[in-house]
């Protein structure tokens, strides 16, 4: 039994400490940037990745000129400074323009940067992983209780507390630090005292990006720089900052220590996925302390309250509905098999986006992990087919039920939170499911997923499956629309606009939101199930961040304040992708830039922009 061997325990604890150090250095930058700018910078993981690539490229060249520990560490530092300057560029070009925007737009815009960086990194550094050099002077392992332990890891263990100390000194003992802490609390007041916030924010971004770059650069002797680093580190860094309390540096340190140890020893409990343990920690901490260890409630928050307003019913909507049905039904008469396939997918994603609209536009619940339920529906259906051999007619409801169940479970935690903590919790939930689908190979097929998920014979073929999809989508959208216009929908909107007032008139806000979460999850699950049968297979990417962001982008594109927005957005995004993707290998760059452009040009959404314009004229 290895667990009882003290040497094994010691080495596990030490490697836990070293990953805690690395994690802290990166997460510390994220939490400082959030504290001052109130922006959760999705691109922080991209900066970490750039740090690793830069160091893995730069340090070997420097070592060729002059081999030695000084050169190695100087190279690491230079890489971090370069990343810091990239952070400054991002601040000046993008973040500066979205400080006042709703957090949904901030998250989307910085995710746009993630997409752009993913393609740029491949362009600049090439598609292959880059293995960095080992640190001169630290190549020999040390012996700890008779076990060999890499000496570089010991340096990393020291690096975390050193960075904590330096950051502490910077924040406590310098004018810059005092101003940063003041701005964390009250930006307007700092400006009223004559402080140039723009400079302060740029400085903060430099510091945050520098720390991300340092975190990444320090990894090069341990892991090769690769294109998946950004999203894997950002998920962990989010957990650390949320558990520690957004904006709290000591909180991030404590959380990183705990998570490092949990990961080191979690493999004894869940050998495949230590992320599950980490997620449980986050869920427990947020259930007890909704703002993490040292976080605090947002002052004057509620910037996410953009959504659907009440409107009188359209005249002749029965007729419009009939026309829509007729157009949907007649489409196979004019379309070929390819167009039908595209239309089927657009309908599926429209349903998916519409279910998210119920959460965001109506409930004000900014979910960043809605793919979890889309994926659960798809996997639920596929697993039922694979392991129990059930038919499509049974598998679709089973997938829907699994998604609703998952939404019920996640929602129980999620509805206790608000704002950015809520977004992070939903993101974490989706990442956990992604990890489970990816790593539980015996059941889910891992990366390959599950194949052979075909519809029943009556529904197979492009035309029947298209018609089935159209019918299910239409029925579900109408049901959801009915829910939005029912008293339940009014209650959700009331809670979205003012939680305190909604509670004061007797609405049980949490229960309503929980129910909404389950309904939205079920609808997303249905979409996922239909999607699985349309492709004949499922794979973990259905649960990934990109799928969640796709749904959000569709909402943003179509307009968050409208009911038909997500439907239009799904068609637009899907159509654009089908059109652009074959033309270029840089579609992520284009998609990222488009998301950023949308956020910058319509920072308050299309409808908000029009309203502002109208208001200014009046």
């Amino acid at each position, binding site marked *: 039994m290895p667990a009882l061997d003290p040497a094994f325990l010691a080495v596990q604890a030490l490697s836990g400490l070293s990953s805690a150090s690395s994690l802290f250095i990166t997460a510390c930058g994220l939490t400082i940037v959030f504290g001052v700018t109130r922006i959760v910078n999705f691109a922080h993981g991209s900066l970490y990745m750039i740090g690793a690539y830069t160091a893995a490229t730069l340090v070997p060249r420097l070592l060729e000129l002059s081999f030695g520990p000084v050169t190695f560490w100087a190279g690491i530092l230079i890489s971090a400074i370069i990343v810091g300057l990239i952070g400054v560029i991002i601040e000046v070009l993008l973040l500066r323009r979205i400080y006042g925007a709703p957090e949904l737009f901030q998250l989307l815009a910085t995710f746009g940067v993630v997409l752009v960086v993913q393609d740029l990194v491949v362009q600049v550094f090439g598609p292959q992983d880059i293995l960095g050099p080992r640190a001169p002077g630290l190549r020999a392992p040390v012996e700890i209780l008779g076990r060999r332990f890499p000496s570089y890891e010991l340096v990393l263990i020291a690096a975390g507390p050193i960075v904590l100390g330096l950051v502490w000194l910077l924040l406590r003992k310098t004018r810059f630090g*005092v*101003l940063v802490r*003041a701005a964390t609390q009250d930006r307007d007041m700092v*400006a*009223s*005292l004559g*402080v140039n916030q723009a400079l302060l924010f740029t400085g903060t971004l430099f510091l945050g990006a520098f720390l991300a770059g340092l975190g990444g650069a320090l990894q090069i002797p341990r892991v090769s720089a690769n294109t998946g680093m950004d999203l894997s580190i950002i998920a962990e860094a989010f957990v650390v900052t949320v558990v520690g309390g957004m904006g709290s540096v000591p909180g991030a340190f404590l959380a990183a220590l705990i998570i490092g140890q949990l990961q080191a020893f979690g493999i004894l409990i869940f050998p495949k996925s230590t992320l599950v343990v980490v997620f449980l920690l986050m869920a427990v901490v947020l259930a007890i302390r909704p703002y993490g260890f040292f976080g605090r409630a947002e002052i004057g928050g509620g910037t996410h309250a953009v959504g659907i307003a009440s409107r009188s019913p359209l005249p002749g909507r029965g007729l419009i509905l009939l026309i829509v049905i007729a157009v949907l039904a007649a489409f196979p008469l004019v379309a070929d098999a390819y167009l039908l396939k595209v239309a089927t997918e657009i309908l599926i994603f429209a349903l998916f986006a519409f279910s998210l609209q119920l959460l965001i536009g109506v409930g004000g619940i900014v979910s960043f992990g809605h793919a979890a339920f889309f994926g659960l529906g798809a996997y639920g259906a596929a697993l039922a087919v694979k392991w129990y051999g059930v038919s499509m007619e049974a598998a679709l409801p089973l997938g829907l039920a699994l998604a609703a169940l998952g939404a019920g479970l996640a929602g129980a935690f999620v509805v206790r939170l608000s704002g950015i903590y809520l977004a992070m919790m939903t993101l974490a939930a989706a990442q956990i499911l992604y990890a489970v689908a990816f790593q539980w190979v015996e059941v889910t097929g891992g990366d390959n997923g599950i194949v052979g998920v075909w519809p029943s014979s009556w529904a197979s073929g492009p035309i029947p499956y298209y018609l089935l999809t159209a019918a299910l989508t239409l029925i579900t959208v109408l049901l959801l629309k009915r829910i939005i216009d029912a008293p339940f929908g009014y209650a959700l909107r009331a809670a979205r606009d003012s939680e305190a007032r909604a509670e004061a008139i007797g609405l049980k806000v949490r229960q309503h939101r929980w129910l909404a979460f389950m309904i939205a999850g079920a609808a997303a699950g249905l979409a996922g199930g239909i999607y699985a049968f349309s492709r004949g297979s499922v794979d973990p990417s259905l649960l990934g961040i990109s799928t969640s962001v796709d749904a959000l982008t569709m909402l943003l594109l179509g307009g968050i304040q409208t009911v038909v927005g997500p439907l239009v957005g799904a068609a637009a995004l899907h159509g654009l992708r089908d059109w652009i993707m074959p033309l270029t290998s840089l579609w992520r760059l284009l998609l990222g830039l488009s998301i950023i452009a949308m956020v910058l040009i319509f920072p308050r959404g299309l409808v908000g922009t029009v309203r502002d314009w109208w208001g200014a004229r009046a």
Partner: protein
Amino acid sequence: MTAPLLEVWNLCAFYGRAQVLFDLTFRLQAGEVMALVGRNGAGKTTTLKAIMGLVAASARQATFKGQSLARLPTYKIARLGLGYVPEDRRIFTDLTVEENLETGRRPAPAGRSPWTPERLFRLFPNLAEMRTRRGNQMSGGEQQMLAIARTLMGNPDAILLDEPSEGIAPVIVQMMAEAIRAMKAEGVAVLLSEQNWAFAAGISDRACVIERGEIRFQGSMAELMANEALQAETLGV
């Protein structure tokens, strides 16, 4: 009469579509204390905020020391030498007294001796005893003193002071009055927004009465004190 330190004309402000200030025009001379008085909701706070550029929708026509404030961001207005103490004080509660003072520090114009923490501790002796205390462990009155001291650290020529007597103990109100007289003695002009009529009357040279976003009276304090009918109508005293 010399050129005014702060000159405001046709100041308008809006919250959404609702107009809350209508064409306010007034002047603040160097070294004087002018009271902006009026009922709750008359627009006093909004006036100060609009001058500082903290109200999103305002038509700001103002000059300070002859320089237009119209398109300046808040921090540049403050750097011209116009200090602002908001009504809710907005102390940085995570920062100590000394750190709060540090946030306000700006160099003094040439030829003037700058405000230092030591000088300010003499002006507000209570603060001297709690230099390393955090803002969240201070009473309302102590926070008010700190807010004023913090703004003085910027060595302003004028201060917009919003409701310094609100919600604090009478003995501290007395100290506030003395502090304002001390500032005046140092040559700092004060635009004082106040609901506490007795307090305002005791320390101000001139007064400006606002009612529903419009100026009803402008003149010397003595003149306003003589006009009891106007006081009763606009101030309810």
